């Protein structure tokens, strides 16, 4: 445990002092600036006090413009936060084992008495912590920007933030796992592709839901179990409008960020088991690896 804490301290220092940190900072500021500007300008172009009436006579349905606008753009920001968090997670972990071993950075650490398990645990803990703090912070800022401009609050605030944090922790674990087997560049590319595949599967699920397609829903479900960051992301998206009802909810579900499905009560236990299994197999492989 002590060894893992030492390695985690080293990894946190590394994440803050490496050149990647200013790059992430600039990207984040650019995103938040453009997001704030975009939300402000777009909100000016709608009439927030109004409701849109759809249909006629007895079939008249009401869409709350403010909720539709805010939830859709906040859904976009959740996607962006997850993407930026993923970029950070991959940068921090893509080279931890094989990449660092090939560069000669790993060997001086591994020969110390702390051992390989502590190294892996410390690296995971530090990267997951840095990425989780990062996504929660950016999530909170984008939420406050949205509220400042539109006055809207999502139906759930804390749970989606925790789910985003858990999603990047899952990506950290997958990237660390991949780094045991793949060289730095190959692993970085592979994890980005896995991330993209997860999101595409989620989109397919949303389309499947709209079209009532069992095949697309099955693809999305299997992908969500295999890559639980996707399930967490979908659940987070669902959470921000979980209590929205009526035709506003229907209208939201037709948008790119509104058709997400709740993941159910097994999501969190499954994520914990998934991380534990990935860690156990990864440690087994790392222990057998010649450096």
């Amino acid at each position, binding site marked *: 445990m002590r060894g893992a804490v030492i390695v985690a301290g080293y990894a946190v220092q590394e994440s803050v002092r490496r050149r990647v940190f200013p790059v992430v900072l600039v990207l984040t500021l650019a995103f938040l600036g453009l997001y704030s500007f975009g939300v402000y300008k777009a909100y000016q172009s709608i009439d927030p006090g109004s409701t849109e009436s759809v249909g006629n006579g007895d079939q008249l349905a009401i869409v709350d413009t403010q909720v539709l606008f805010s939830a859709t753009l906040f859904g976009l920001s959740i996607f962006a936060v997850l993407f930026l968090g993923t970029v950070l997670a991959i940068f921090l972990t893509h080279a931890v084992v094989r990449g660092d071993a090939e560069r000669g950075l790993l060997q001086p650490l591994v020969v110390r008495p702390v051992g390989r398990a502590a190294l892996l645990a410390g690296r995971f803990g530090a990267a997951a912590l840095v990425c989780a703090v990062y996504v929660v912070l950016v999530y909170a800022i984008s939420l406050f920007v949205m509220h400042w401009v539109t006055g809207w609050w999502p139906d759930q605030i804390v749970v989606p933030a925790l789910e985003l944090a858990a999603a990047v922790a899952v990506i950290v674990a997958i990237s660390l796992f991949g780094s045991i087997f793949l060289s730095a560049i190959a692993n970085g590319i592979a994890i980005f592709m896995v991330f993209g595949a997860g999101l595409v599967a989620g989109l397919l699920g949303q389309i499947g839901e709209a079209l009532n397609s069992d095949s697309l829903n099955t693809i999305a479900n299997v992908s969500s179990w295999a890559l639980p960051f996707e399930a967490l992301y979908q659940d987070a998206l669902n959470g921000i409008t979980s209590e929205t009802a009526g035709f506003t909810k229907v209208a939201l579900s037709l948008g790119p960020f509104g058709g997400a499905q709740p993941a159910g009560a097994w999501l969190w236990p499954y994520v914990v088991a998934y991380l534990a299994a990935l860690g156990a197999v990864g440690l087994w492989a790392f222990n057998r690896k*010649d450096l």
Partner: protein
Amino acid sequence: MAAFRAQGLAKRYGNVTALGGVDLEVAEGELVGLLGPNGAGKSTLVKIACGLVRASAGTAEVAGAPAGSPAARGALGYLAELFRFPGWYNADELLALHQRLAGSEGGEAERAELLDLVGLTEARSRKVEDMSKGMQQRLGIAQALVGRPRLLFLDEPTSALDPVGRRTVRRLLEELRRRGVSVLLNSHLLSEVELVCDRVVILSKGLVVAAGRTEELARPRGVEVDTDAGTRLFDSARREDAPRIVAELVAAGEKVYGVRVLETTLEEIYLEAVEGETS
């Protein structure tokens, strides 16, 4: 108890045999030079000892503990042939990290002593990325010495050093011997090994092909005598023949100015042992 002991140590990578059953022992306080051409298995041997590589067969012990175990790793210091330290650390921070990893309680005094030992006192606040390769190599040696290890594995520690740096390392090795630290020095620089090591072990194709003290391995090459008639070589003569040869020359009326007993050098021993093999 030996500081390091390997028995029947073997390592195969697929069809390639890196080590074919090596027996080797480094006694307490002994400085052993590990020689051999590229690909002879020197680095593999050291990596098994450090727990970086798993042996295919045989055993290796460091200070009585199985190689790779926490106890073994706690007793050794290691400088890899190809190593790199995080560029954003300065020398002092790097040593502090390794103190924490090694469980050393030496604190600032130990760091200052180590930096002084490798001649980097002035560079203690300099970032690794701003250091020359030679400075990084000396910092690597200081890092290996963190926690006062009983056994030091140095894999080509002077490959990036200039002559002054090499002399610094040589003096450092002599100081370590004085302190009773055992050293397994893996090097291509035969003159360096000859100067500082108590014993040499020569590996070729994964096997020990020669081992012993340099003078034990050396073979007589004759006696060379400087006389007023020029230099004369008695190629079948040995050290004990020298007084007789001198007496005979003087009796024959020649003036003798110098006598040299010739023996094979470490380079010749090495080349003979590896039969001209190269990487």
